[in-house]
C-alpha cells in the first residue's frame, strides 16, 4: 500500500502541460534529467539560462524545461545562440543539438563557435542515426552498418567530434554515454561554469531506429551495450587502432583556460572607448 506520494525533486524545473515527446526508452529522458540535476546542484537561476536547440529529437529536450527556450532551424542552434550570448553576456546559454543537426548540416557553426570560444555550453546528443526522419545514415553511423539509406552497408567512416572540436580550440571537451550519468552530470556542471566554448558529446541509445538495425531494441540492453563499447581515454591508448575503431572513447579530453569571445569583445569596447577619450 502506498502511504505517501513523493514529488520528483526536479519537477519544479518542468514546464506545465507539455506532453513528453520521446519514444519509450529514448536516451533524451536521461539527458534531460542529467541537465536538470546539474542545474539543481549548481543552484543557478533558471531565469538566467537560455536553452537553444536545433531540429531533430534532441531539439525537443528543452521544450520540457520551464525556462526561456529558443527552438531554431536545422543545424543552426549554435549560430542563434551566438547572437543570444553576445546580445546579453549575463545569460548562460546552453545548446542542445544532435549528431545530424550539429555535425552534418550545422558542422561549420560548431567549428567556428569552438574557434571563437563563444561562451556556450553545447550538448550534442549522438544517437548515431537520423532518428526523427526514420533511421537514415548519419555522419556518426558506424562503418558497415545498414540503415534506411545504406541498405548495403555504410561505406563512410564516422566523425570523431571531440577531436574536431578540440582541434578548433574549445575550452572544454568531453564524451560520455547515457550509461555514464554521474560523469555526465559532473561534466555538465564543469562545462556550465567554464569560460569559453564547452562541448559535451553524449552517445545515446535510439531503440526505435538504431535498435531496429542492430536487432536490439530493449533500452536496458542498449545501455549495457553502450557501457560495454565504452573505453576510458587513458585505457584507449593501450589498445590497437583496429580494436579501438569499434569502441566509444569516453572521458574529458580538454579542460583549458581561454578568453571567451564575449569577454574579448567587452575588452575591445573598453579599448576603443579609451582611445576615443585620449
Amino acid at each position, binding site marked *: 500500500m502506498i502511504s505517501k506520494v513523493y514529488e520528483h525533486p526536479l519537477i519544479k524545473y518542468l*514546464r506545465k*502541460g*507539455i506532453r513528453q515527446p520521446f519514444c519509450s526508452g529514448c536516451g533524451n529522458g536521461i539527458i534531460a534529467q542529467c541537465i536538470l540535476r546539474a542545474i539543481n546542484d549548481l543552484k543557478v537561476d*533558471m*531565469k*538566467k539560462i*537560455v536553452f*537553444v536547440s536545433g531540429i531533430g529529437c534532441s531539439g525537443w529536450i528543452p*521544450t520540457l524545461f*520551464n*525556462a*526561456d*527556450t*529558443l*527552438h*531554431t*532551424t536545422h543545424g*543552426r542552434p549554435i*549560430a*542563434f*545562440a*551566438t*547572437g*543570444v*550570448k*553576445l*546580445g*546579453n553576456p*549575463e*545569460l548562460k546559454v546552453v545548446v542542445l543539438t544532435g549528431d545530424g543537426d550539429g555535425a552534418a548540416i550545422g558542422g*561549420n*557553426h560548431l*567549428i*567556428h563557435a569552438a574557434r571563437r570560444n563563444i561562451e556556450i555550453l553545447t550538448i550534442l546528443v549522438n544517437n548515431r542515426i537520423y532518428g526523427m526522419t526514420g533511421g537514415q545514415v548519419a555522419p556518426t553511423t558506424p562503418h558497415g552498418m545498414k540503415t534506411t539509406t545504406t541498405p548495403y552497408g555504410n561505406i563512410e567512416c564516422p566523425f570523431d567530434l571531440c577531436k574536431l572540436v578540440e582541434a578548433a580550440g574549445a575550452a572544454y571537451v568531453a564524451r560520455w554515454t547515457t550509461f555514464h550519468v554521474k560523469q555526465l552530470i559532473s561534466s555538465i556542471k564543469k562545462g556550465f561554469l567554464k569560460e569559453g566554448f564547452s562541448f559535451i558529446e553524449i552517445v545515446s541509445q535510439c531503440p526505435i531506429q538504431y535498435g531496429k538495425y542492430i536487432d536490439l531494441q530493449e533500452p536496458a540492453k542498449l545501455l549495457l551495450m553502450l557501457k560495454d563499447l565504452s573505453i576510458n581515454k587513458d585505457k584507449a591508448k593501450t589498445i590497437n587502432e583496429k580494436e579501438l575503431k569499434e569502441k566509444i572513447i569516453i572521458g574529458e579530453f580538454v579542460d583549458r583556460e581561454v578568453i571567451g569571445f564575449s569577454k574579448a*569583445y567587452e575588452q*575591445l*569596447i573598453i579599448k*576603443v*572607448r579609451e582611445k*576615443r577619450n585620449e
Partner: protein
Amino acid sequence: MNEISEIIKPGNYLMMGNEACALGAIIAGCRFFAFYPITPANEIAEYMSIYLPKIGGIYIQMEDEISSIASVIGASWTGLKAMTATSGPGFTLMQENIGHAIMTETPCVIVDVQRCGPSTGTPALPMQGDVYQARRGSHGEYEIIALAPSSVKDTLLLTIEAFNLSEKYRVPVIILSDALIGHMMENVEIPDLSSIKIINRKKPSKLDESQFFLSEDISPMPTLGSGYKVHITGSTHDEKGIRNVYDPIYVDNLVHKIYAKIHKHIDDIVKIETRYLDNSKVLLLSYGSVARSALHAVKLARKEGLKVGYVKLITLWPFPEKLISNMINNGEVEKIIVLENNMGQIVNEVKRVLHKDIEVKFLPPEVLGTIHDPMYILENLKKNMG
C-alpha cells in the same frame, strides 16, 4: 547614453549609399550587426565595425550568411535591434532563417544590396532581380515588408523606417537596395537626431502575461532572461508559443494571424511617391535606382508637353494595391508603363491590380544590369503616346 551624437552630427555630408545605411541603422537604435563578406554590401559592414564598438554595440563577422541572420534573430530576442546585410547569393542562404524570424515574429532588418544574378552573376552591377525573392524566398505562406530606396538619402531614411516597422509589427523588414544605390555618393542632410521618430517594440508589463505570439494587433515581445520563460519555436505553435505539429487547426490559425497582422495595418505600412499626376494620360511606375531615370524622363517629357506622371514605390511588399488603384480613379490615365531592371517582377502585381481598367506595359532597360537611359524612356513614351 547619447553617445551616438559623437559619431553622428547633424549637417550635410557626401556619403555612399552603404554608409548611409549603416548610419541610418545606428540612428534607429541598431546595436547588433552580423555579416558575411559579399559584394556590393561590404561597406555597410565596414562602417558598422567602426561605429558599433564605439557605442557599445556588437559587430560580428559570422561564418556564413545563414549564421549571420541566425545570430541576428538570437540577439533580437535579447532586446537589441539587430540587422544583417548581404547581396543576392547571401540573401538566398538567409531565406530559411528569414522564415524562422517570420514564424517567431522576431523584429530584424535585412539589407539586400542587389547584384546581377542568377548565381554568382555579376557582383558589382545592379539588378532588381530579388523582388520576388524578398516576398516569397522562404517556404510556406507568410507576409513580409520590403522597402526600396532610390537615393543615398532614401537609404538613410528607409533604414530607420525599416527598424520602426520591424519593431512595431514584429516582422523582418527587407531593404532592397542595389549595387548602384549602395555604391553611389550623394549629398545627405542628417537632421537633428531628436527630430527623428524612433519606434521600440512593445514589451510585456506583468510577469503573469503569457501570450506572446499571434495577435493581429501584435503581441508584446518578452526579452530572454527577464523571467517570462518564453517558448520560441519555428514549429507551428499557439498564442503561448507552445508547439502543435499534429492539428491543422493550429497551422490555419498561425498563417492567418501572421497575414492579418500586416494586412490589418497595411495603410500604416505602405508608401508610394507621386509627381506630375495632374492630367496624366500615361504613368511611369518604378522603384529603387530605376526611379531616378524615370523621374528624369518624366521631366523631359513634361518639357515637351507630354502628359506623363511619375509613381515611385517606396514599399514593394506588402504591395500597395489600394494606393495604386486610387491613382487611376479620376479616369484620365490610359496607360501605365512599369520600369524595372529585370525581366518583369513588380509589373505582374501592377497588372493584377489594374489590368481591367487600363493598359499595363513593361519596359526593361536596353541592357540588363544598367538602369534605363532617360532618353530611351522618352523615346518609348513617345511611341506609346503616338
